[in-house]
């Protein structure tokens, strides 16, 4: 079975059913879904044969929702209810979003994450994103002919905790089990790396519609190790459109445009940008709602000049990432281009100049992220892949806590490999202080006010002591999705407090439940049926996993232990086909409990084997 993919004679894996899993690229401009079919990663098209789903959602007064092309078609006529580039708002407050004046939306300030007022009510960016994800989920389930075990969803590497949490919430709202969030450049590297069986250091330059990421990876014997990542989560193709739009306003002397006219000109700006990737000159012609004619010729050279500083803004993070990885440009073996914006000739030229080599563009920059995510989803779902490989990713931003004077004490530095845990001791500053407020922040700056606040919690009940004598150990744990939990413990008294960091502006469990219940009765029945199906799938997977584990490593257990596990398995089997999801859940929990000791023994064995196998191969060399 997949747990111990060690080629040892006589340990062939039991055949099992292929589990349906997909990779989803939830992009600023377009979104895609891909899956691994017959060992090859493929993008799933819609009924019309289109792979890209425009990330556009339109709300109508009757509550109906359009997603994709039909919504995109309406963007010029119904701009306030047609949401484009919603990814830029994920986990973002009003103050975080630049250029708001030039967006045709009615933005509502809300604690932490802004919201959008539409004809169908106020919508959070999480809800808007969930509409896009629902379409992709349906597409995948129809195309694959069954319910998904789960999905890997990609996020920009430079997304912070709030943005990641928002993405995960959107997936849950869309009824998708998230197997893992992975970073877009890493996903691209998987697609490229497994394709070319390359070894060495690679840079992934990912300029999407709204975000820029740079990642430096080392590929070595099937291990993808991210060495450093950097970027700008508010820089992308949209900014290039914006430059053309501003140029048009300046040339025409227009100002104070209506929402419709703003959207019209932005649409033309984008078309002009795309034209200039092919031609040296393009014509921007539009008639505004008041009858004014806009008609200008834009040359490639002018476009280059007006976007030069956007390119510079991508090279700064690139230099930082190389510095963090302790590497020079000459040590980079290849540069992978990802994201539709890397089609612009000036981007390719700037990257080629910087890295002193022609970047790789042989995989479609729009699809490569989804293709890589699908490969990872296939592995995480437990489908065996032919080549055994592993991805080691990092956190993009440092994590720390607030100390006296509004300063940040970094506890986990950026580019720490995950999963990771770090602890640090702090003390009280007042005599008799019995409580301590712990403020968790993310970012590189020294002042708390310049970093992003993630969570605040209190450690209470510290016995009164002289200032400086309490010993408070704060532990940060980041899981494989890059999400953080924090705990604090006063070591003399053993007083503890912990918090799973859900940003203040993230959605809480209640919000999700409410949003799900807001749907109509039909949707609710659908949800229940889905929950049951998911529970059954989980039970069957668990039974299969334990069965395989027993077949393989049953020798590690005594007769009594085996019998006990077998009894729990029989119990679970007897309820799995009954339509009672709580009974199934109970059966799963009991079996999980019963296998704790077994899991421990198997893990010890794998660790021992890892080093044993290593010694063998060293002897051979």
């Amino acid at each position, binding site marked *: 079975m997949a747990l111990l993919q060690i080629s040892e004679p006589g340990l062939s894996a039991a055949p099992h059913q292929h589990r349906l899993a997909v990779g989803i690229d939830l992009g600023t401009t377009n979104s895609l879904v891909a899956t691994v079919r017959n060992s090859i990663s493929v993008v799933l098209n819609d009924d019309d044969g289109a792979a890209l789903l425009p990330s556009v959602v339109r709300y109508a007064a009757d509550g109906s929702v359009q997603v994709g092309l039909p919504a995109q078609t309406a963007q010029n006529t119904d701009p306030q209810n047609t949401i484009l580039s919603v990814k830029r708002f994920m986990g973002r407050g009003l103050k975080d979003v630049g250029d708001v004046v030039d967006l045709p939306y009615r933005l509502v300030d809300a604690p932490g994450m802004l919201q959008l007022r539409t004809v169908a009510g106020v919508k959070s960016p999480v809800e808007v994103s969930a509409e896009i994800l629902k379409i992709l989920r349906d597409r995948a389930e129809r195309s694959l002919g069954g319910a998904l075990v789960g999905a890997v969803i990609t996020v920009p590497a430079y997304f912070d905790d709030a943005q990641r949490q928002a993405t995960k919430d959107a997936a849950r709202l869309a009824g998708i089990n998230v197997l893992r969030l992975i970073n877009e450049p890493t996903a691209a590297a998987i697609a490229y790396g497994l394709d070319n069986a390359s070894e060495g250091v690679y840079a992934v330059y990912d300029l999407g519609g709204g975000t820029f990421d740079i990642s430096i990876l080392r590929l070595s014997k099937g291990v993808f190790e991210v060495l450093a990542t950097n970027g700008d989560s508010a820089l992308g193709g949209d900014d290039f459109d914006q430059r053309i739009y501003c140029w048009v306003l300046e040339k025409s002397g227009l100002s104070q445009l209506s929402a419709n006219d703003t959207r019209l000109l932005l649409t033309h700006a984008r078309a002009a940008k795309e034209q200039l990737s092919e031609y040296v000159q393009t014509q921007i012609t539009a008639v505004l709602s008041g009858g004014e004619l806009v008609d200008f010729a834009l040359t490639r050279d002018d476009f280059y000049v007006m976007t030069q500083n956007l390119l510079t803004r991508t090279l700064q993070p690139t230099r930082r990432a190389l510095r963090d990885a302790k590497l020079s440009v000459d040590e980079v073996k290849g540069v992978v281009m990802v994201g539709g914006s890397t089609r612009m000739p000036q981007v390719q030229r700037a990257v080629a100049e910087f890295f002193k080599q022609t970047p790789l563009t042989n995989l479609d920059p729009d699809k490569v992220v989804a293709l890589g995510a699908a490969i990872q989803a296939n592995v995480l*779902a*437990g489908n065996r892949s032919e080549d055994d490989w592993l991805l080691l990713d990092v956190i993009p931003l440092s994590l720390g806590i607030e100390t006296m004077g509004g300063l940040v004490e970094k506890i986990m530095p950026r580019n720490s490999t995950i*999963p990771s845990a770090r602890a640090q001791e702090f003390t009280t500053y007042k005599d008799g202080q019995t409580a301590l407020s712990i403020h968790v922040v993310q970012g590189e700056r020294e002042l708390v006010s310049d970093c992003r606040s993630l969570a605040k919690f209190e450690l209470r009940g510290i016995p009164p002591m002289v200032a400086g004598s309490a010993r408070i150990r704060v532990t940060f744990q980041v899981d494989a999705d890059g999400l953080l939990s924090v705990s604090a413990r006063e070591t003399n008294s053993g007083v503890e407090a912990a918090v799973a960091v859900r940003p203040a502006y993230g959605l809480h469990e209640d919000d999700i439940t409410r949003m799900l219940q807001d749907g109509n009765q039909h949707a609710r029945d659908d949800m229940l049926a889905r929950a049951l199906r998911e529970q059954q799938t989980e039970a069957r997977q668990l039974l299969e996993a334990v069965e395989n584990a027993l077949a393989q490593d049953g020798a590690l257990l005594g007769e009594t232990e085996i019998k006990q596990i077998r009894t729990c398995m029989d119990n679970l089997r007897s309820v799995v086909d009954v339509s009672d999801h709580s009974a199934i859940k109970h059966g799963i929990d009991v079996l999980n409990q019963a296998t*704790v000791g077994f899991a421990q023994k198997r893990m010890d064995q794998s660790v*021992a084997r*890892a*080093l044993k196998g290593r010694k063998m191969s060293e002897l051979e060399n």
Partner: protein
Amino acid sequence: MLPISTDFQQDYFALFNLPLRFQIDSNALEQHYRALQTQVHPDKFSHLSQSEQRLSMQWATRVNEAYQTLHSPLARGRYLLSLHGVDTQEDTNTAMPLDFLMQQMELREVLEAARQNKDMAALDEMEAQVKQTVSELQQKLALELDEKQDYATASGLVRKLKFMEKVAEEIGAAFDELDS
């Protein structure tokens, strides 16, 4: 084959099958690190039982922590000393030799001047100089730890390395500042 009992409390050197020394075979460290992560990483357990997922998370975290510690010469020196029962007192013991403190002050003056004058070349030169000093300190540390077993002297060298690491960080921050 009888399963070898793998003690979760074993030291990091033992975890990676390396001798308990400051000077390590970095190739072996990297190879053992990858081999271990390939066995214990959560990605290998995502479809298995909760107990296996939890254990995998604990192990992968520990393997990462161990690798980070042994990979960095400063952390490795500090860790090796802690295994010998010596606390390096980096936060409390600031009694550094006078010549070292003078050198630190000088470095910071040069750094400040380079920042003021936006002088990238000066930063480059400084970075090279710091690298050289760090490398010399590491060689001395290896001698004290592996040959002489003089842990008090080694402790002092770890504190010096810590100072130099801070300077290196500040140089990095200055590069970023001049770049933006």
